[in-house]
């Protein structure tokens, strides 16, 4: 599952909020900004929907990196979803390094619908970091 596939891609999962970040990724696409194809997007209504366990389950089941992106704080489409997200994801980031999983594999950020260029840069940078860190290979059988 994890590991380098023939095209040299690693598995990066992205949780994007429907209103801002998914729109931002869409803007990047419409403007034909080139990005690495390792990242696969899962659309959620709000970054507040992201249960920290989603990130953990992704990493434990073969993902090499996880990116979560939502609206900027104070600009959440649902007013306060991303405030909760910020607290939860910060808690998770600190917990990951305690477990021995490099916490650079998990990144959360705030990208709005108009920030296509910023989205492109984020994906490029994050993919590069994951490639530098290499595959995670966390799937273990008993």
């Amino acid at each position, binding site marked *: 599952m994890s590991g380098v596939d023939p095209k040299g891609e690693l598995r990066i999962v992205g949780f994007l909020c429907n209103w801002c970040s998914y729109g931002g990724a869409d803007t990047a696409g419409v403007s034909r900004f080139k990005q690495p194809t390792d990242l696969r997007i899962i659309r959620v209504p709000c970054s507040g929907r992201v249960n920290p366990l989603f990130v953990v389950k992704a990493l434990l089941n073969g993902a090499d990196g996880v990116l979560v992106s939502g609206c900027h704080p104070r600009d959440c489409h649902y007013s*306060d979803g991303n405030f909760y997200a*910020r607290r939860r994801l910060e808690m998770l980031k600190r917990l990951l390094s305690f477990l021995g999983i490099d916490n650079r594999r998990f990144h959360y950020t705030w990208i709005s619908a108009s920030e296509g260029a910023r989205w492109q840069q984020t994906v490029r940078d994050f993919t590069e970091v994951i490639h530098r860190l290499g595959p995670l290979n966390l*799937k273990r059988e008993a």
Partner: protein
Amino acid sequence: MSIEMLRDVVKKVLEEVDVVIGYTEGFDKIHTTPFFIDTPEQVDELIWNPTCVHNLATYLPSLKKKVGVVVKGCDSRTIVQYMQEGLINRDNIKIIGIPCKGIISVKRLSKAIDYANIEDVVFENEGKITVKTDKGDKTVAMVDIMPDKCKTCQYPTPVIYDYLIGDPIKSDKPQESVYADIVEFDKKTPEEKLQYWLKEFDRCIRCYACRNACPMCICQDSCIAETREPHWISQKLTTQEKFMFHLIHAVHLAGRCVECGECERVCPMGIPVNKLKRKINLDMKELFDYVPGINPDDKPPMYTFNVDELKIKEHKIG
């Protein structure tokens, strides 16, 4: 504090409630067991000594009657946390608090006496215990056989009570010592830490004793670790699934764990389950200045937010 004082108070409380939960002798001298009292005659079987290790507050949310409960300092934090989350009705509970100087860890004591069979236990003064076994007598110091939570206890006197049996005790342990072992562990290399956790979780048998003994785990029969819709973890017994189960447990207790230590005490395989939760608690303290189970008017940090989080800085990639 004397056992007569406790029994008198319990007799009085029994007139106002349907049941009082206390401790009584278990199957041998180092094991006590929770005791549900509903008649005055049973009160004479109540005991109190350092072998009273259980957190009796864990029964409160499921008992829908008027209850009296005997609590130590750490257990009382559970009650405060329940109040913060609205899980109990404070008016239906009578809290009998006992200031506590520390309890034993059955695992450590058994090891100290080389797993001999215990015939009697005497609690001496100056924090010593003499254990009479079938292989002879042995005296150990309490401080050597306490669980870790007692060695750094900040709340020896219950933080909430209706009756206090005995004089309040002030903590003589420095604040920094509480999470010193977490800070120490975090200094290891990532590879060491990962190998440590994989080795520990590999021993797990998914008996769910830690989950069921935890006072804050109230989902119990609806736990997502057992549901199939959605299918969080499978029944396969791989290290990966066990790792996921323990993370589910720890993350659901983020900012709610009162560090009563029951999870680690009940694990039949000796896994340091409490470490993960205390790490999260340390983060909660650093980020949000929050300590679980102290102030009934607090809100658990994962249930609330601030528009401006001064301690959360935006991260850079890599």
